[in-house]
C-alpha cells in the first residue's frame, strides 16, 4: 500500500465516526427545521442555500477544523518521528478536507431541495428571477470561501469552531480586495478573477502546509501561528498589491489619457486660469470614478485639486446669492452641499451664503432675471435701471423675455413688445420669422434660427429680420463663448465648422479649428482659448497660429487641499 493511501486510511478511520454521526444527524435536523418553517420559506432558494452553507459549516467544525489541529493535540510527535515525518500526512488530510467539504455541500443541497420538494415542490420553485440563483450561489460561495482558510487556521487554533471563526476573519481580512472590489463596481476580467481565486486558494494551501509542518521540532503554538498566518499574509500580498493598484488607478486623474474625459471647462477672461471638471472612464469599473475639479494656472502650468465634489459653476458676473447680486466678476465654483465656495479666478474662498446657495442668474436679453424673495421671477432692465416682477410685467409662465435698449421683446404664442415704463404691450408681427432666438447682441439685435433653419438677425430699428450671409442651414448651430462683457462677437458652430460672427455687421468668417478643438473663451484681444487633446492652446483666430498655454503632460497635478 502506498504511503498516501496509508495516511488516507488513517484519516478515514479517525473521521469515520464523525461522518456517520453527521450523515444521520444532518437529515434529521434539516427535516425538523424544514417542516417547521412557513411553506414559502421552506420552498425558497434561501432555505436551500442556508442548508447547504450550514452543512459546510458543520462539517468544517467537526472535521475540517480538526484535521490539522487534532494531530497537534494528540499524536503529532508520533507522526513526526515516522520516517517521512509530518509532511507525509498532509496530502491525505487535504484530500479528506476537500472530499468532506464537497460531500457536505452536495448533501446540503440535496437535503434542501428534497425538503423543499416535500413541502410543496422544488419543481414549482421559481428560478425565473436570476437573483434567486445568485442569492443561492452567494450564500454557498461565502461558506466555501471560508472553508480553505478554516482548514489552514486549524493548524494553530485550539479547536475546530475557533478555526472556523479565525478562517472567516483571515479570509475576509486578507481576501478583502477580492471580496470588496467586485462590490465597488469593479468588473474583473476572467483572468483576474481566476488569478485572484487561485491566489486565495493557494494562500490557504500554503498557510495550511506551513502551519501543519511548523508543528515539528516542538514549536510553540505562537510560533506555528506566526509561520502559518505569516505565510498566508505573504500569499495575499500580490492580491493586495493588485487591489491597491486598481484603487489607485481609480482614484488617479491622468489628464490627456484616453480614459480621461473633461466634462466641463472654464477659462477666466484674462486667460490665466482654467478650471476643469474631469473624470476617468475605465472599462473594468462598472461606474465611473468620481469627477475631480482642477484649478489650473495656465501661465505656470501647475494645478491643484479643489475639494469640491460635483461642483456647480456660476458664470461670470451673473451669480446671485440670496439678498442681492454677487459682487464677483468671474465665475464661482460651489459644492453641492454649499459648504465650499471659491472664486475660480483667484482661487480664494468665498463666504458661503447663510441660506440657500448661489444661483446662476439667467440672461434676459441684455438684462438679467432672477428669483425674488417670494420665488417670483424678477426682471432687471439695465437701460432703465428698473426691476419688474413677472406678474407685474404681464409675462406668462413659459414666455421668454429679451431686454434690449429698444424695449422688452416677449416670445410666447407669438411675439410682442413691452414698455416697462408704461406697462403697455403690442404685437410684433415682424419678429415672427425668427423661429428660435439665441442671443441678444450688444446693439440690441437678436440672433437666432429662421424658419428654414438658417441663421438670422432681428433688428429693432429697421423692424426686419435678415439672414446672416454665409451661414449654412444650421440646425445644430450653437453659440459658444458668449458672455455679458463681450457682445460684439460670437463664436458659432454648425456641423461643418466653427465661425466667428462679427455682430456689428453680421458677417461670418470661418475659424481654423480642427476636430477635437474645444473653444472655451474669446479673450479681450480676440484670441481664442481652446482645449485640445494635448492641453490648453491659444489660437489667433485670424492668423490661425497656435500657442500652447499648458500641456497636459506638463501640468504638475498635485493633490492639494486649498
Amino acid at each position: 500500500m502506498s504511503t498516501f493511501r496509508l495516511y488516507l486510511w488513517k484519516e478515514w478511520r479517525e473521521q469515520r465516526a464523525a461522518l456517520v454521526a453527521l450523515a444521520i444527524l444532518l437529515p434529521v435536523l434539516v427535516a425538523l427545521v424544514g417542516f417547521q418553517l412557513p411553506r414559502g420559506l421552506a420552498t425558497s432558494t434561501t432555505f436551500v442555500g442556508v442548508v447547504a452553507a450550514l452543512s459546510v459549516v458543520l462539517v468544517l467544525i467537526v472535521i475540517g477544523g480538526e484535521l490539522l489541529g487534532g494531530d497537534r493535540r494528540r499524536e503529532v510527535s508520533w507522526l513526526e518521528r515516522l520516517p517521512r515525518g509530518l509532511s507525509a500526512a498532509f496530502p491525505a488530510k487535504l484530500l479528506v478536507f476537500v472530499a468532506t467539504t464537497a460531500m457536505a455541500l452536495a448533501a446540503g443541497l440535496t437535503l434542501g431541495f428534497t425538503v423543499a420538494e416535500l413541502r410543496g415542490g422544488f419543481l414549482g420553485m421559481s428560478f425565473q428571477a436570476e437573483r434567486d440563483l445568485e442569492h443561492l450561489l452567494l450564500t454557498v460561495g461565502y461558506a466555501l470561501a471560508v472553508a480553505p482558510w478554516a482548514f489552514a487556521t486549524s493548524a494553530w487554533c485550539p479547536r475546530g469552531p475557533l478555526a472556523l471563526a479565525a478562517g472567516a476573519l483571515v479570509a475576509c481580512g486578507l481576501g478583502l480586495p477580492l471580496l470588496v472590489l467586485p462590490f465597488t463596481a469593479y468588473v474583473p476580467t476572467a483572468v483576474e478573477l481566476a488569478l485572484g481565486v487561485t491566489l486565495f486558494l493557494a494562500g490557504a494551501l500554503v498557510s495550511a502546509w506551513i502551519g501543519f509542518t511548523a508543528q515539528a521540532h516542538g514549536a510553540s503554538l505562537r510560533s506555528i501561528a506566526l509561520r502559518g498566518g505569516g505565510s498566508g499574509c505573504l500569499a495575499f500580498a500580490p492580491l493586495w498589491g493588485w487591489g491597491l493598484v486598481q484603487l489607485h488607478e481609480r482614484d488617479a486623474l491622468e489628464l490627456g489619457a484616453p480614459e480621461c474625459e473633461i466634462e466641463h471647462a472654464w477659462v477666466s477672461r484674462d486667460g490665466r486660469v482654467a478650471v476643469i471638471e474631469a473624470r476617468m472612464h475605465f472599462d473594468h469599473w462598472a461606474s465611473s470614478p468620481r469627477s475631480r475639479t482642477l484649478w489650473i494656472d495656465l501661465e505656470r502650468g501647475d494645478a491643484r485639486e479643489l475639494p469640491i465634489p460635483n461642483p456647480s459653476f456660476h458664470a461670470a458676473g451673473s451669480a446671485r446669492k440670496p439678498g442681492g447680486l454677487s459682487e464677483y466678476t468671474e465665475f464661482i465654483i460651489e459644492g453641492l452641499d454649499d459648504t465650499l465656495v471659491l472664486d475660480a479666478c483667484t482661487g480664494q474662498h468665498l463666504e458661503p451664503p447663510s441660506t440657500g446657495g448661489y444661483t446662476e442668474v439667467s440672461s434676459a436679453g441684455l438684462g438679467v432675471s432672477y428669483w425674488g424673495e417670494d420665488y417670483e421671477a424678477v426682471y432687471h432692465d439695465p437701460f432703465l435701471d428698473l426691476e419688474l416682477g413677472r406678474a407685474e410685467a404681464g409675462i406668462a409662465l413659459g414666455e421668454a423675455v429679451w431686454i434690449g435698449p429698444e424695449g422688452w421683446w416677449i416670445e410666447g404664442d407669438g411675439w410682442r413688445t413691452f414698455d416697462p415704463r408704461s406697462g403697455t404691450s403690442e404685437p410684433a408681427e415682424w419678429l415672427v420669422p425668427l423661429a428660435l432666438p439665441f442671443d441678444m447682441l450688444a446693439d440690441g439685435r437678436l440672433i437666432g434660427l429662421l424658419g428654414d433653419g438658417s441663421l438670422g438677425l432681428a433688428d429693432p430699428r429697421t423692424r426686419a429680420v435678415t439672414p446672416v450671409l454665409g451661414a449654412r442651414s444650421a440646425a445644430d448651430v450653437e453659440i459658444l463663448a458668449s458672455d455679458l462683457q463681450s457682445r460684439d462677437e460670437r463664436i458659432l458652430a454648425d456641423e461643418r465648422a466653427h465661425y466667428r460672427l462679427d455682430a456689428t455687421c453680421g458677417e461670418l468668417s470661418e475659424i481654423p479649428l480642427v476636430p477635437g478643438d474645444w473653444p472655451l473663451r474669446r479673450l479681450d484681444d480676440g484670441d481664442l482659448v481652446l482645449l485640445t487633446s494635448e492641453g490648453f492652446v491659444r489660437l489667433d483666430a485670424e492668423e490661425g497660429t497656435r500657442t500652447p498655454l499648458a500641456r497636459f503632460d506638463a501640468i504638475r497635478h498635485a493633490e492639494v487641499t486649498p
Partner: protein
Amino acid sequence: MNAIVRVDHLAKRFGKTPVLADVSFELPAHGVTVLLGANGEGKSTLLRLLLGLLKADAGSLEVLGLDPLKQPRALREQVAYVPDAPDNPAWMTPAELFHFLRPQYPLWRHERALALAKDWDVPLERPFKHLSRGQAARAMLAAALAQSPKLLLLDECFSGLDPVARRDLLGAFLGELAREEVATLLVTHDLDVAARVAERVLVLADGKILHQGSLDEVLKVDEEAARVQSRLLGLLERAQQKEVAA
C-alpha cells in the same frame, strides 16, 4: 570505540530554562547503555534531539553518521523509538499499527512483529485505548524490534508497570535483544532496571553527563563516587516516590 552516536557539547533550552547545558558522550554500536537521571533532567529531550525532533541550541550530534535534522528520513528508518506511553492514535489496534508502519520501514519484519506480539500476549485486535499499560508497552516494543533498527531508543518504557509485569517484560525483551545486532539507549530513573540491563551507564544531571562507564564504575565507592551515588540514589528515590504517588 566504534561509536554509533556522537554528541559533542550539546545544549538545549526551552525559553529561558536551560535543560541541557553541555552534554558530550559517545554510544557504542552494540550493547545496552542506560541513561540515568532524575525527572526533568532532560533525558527525553536528549532522545528527541537524537531523533531530530528538536533543534539543539549549541553543540553537534551525529547518529549513524547522519545529521538528524538534515537527514531525518534516512535516520528514522534505522532508529526505533519507544516512548514512555504509546502516542500513536488510541483507536489503533496493534495489528493496525503494524500495518501502518510496515511500508514505512524498508527493513520491516512483519512476521517478527506478529510473532513477538503473540509471544508477549499482545491482543492484536484490541485498540490501544483498551490495552493495559504493559500490553501497550509490549506492542510498542514489538513494533520497534520489527523495524530492524540499528539504534533503539527506549524512553522510560518500563516505568509505570507493576514489578511483576516489569520483570517479565524486561526478561522477554532482553532475550529478544540478545538476538538483535542493535545498540540500545535506555532512559530510566529506575536503578533496578538499570542494574538488570546496563552494560554501560550515563548519568545526566545539571544538564551534563556527570559520569559514564559501567554501573559498577559509576557506583564505585570512593570519595567522589560516594557523593555521586548519594546524590543519584536521592534523585532516583525521589523520582520513584513521585511515581508511586502518581
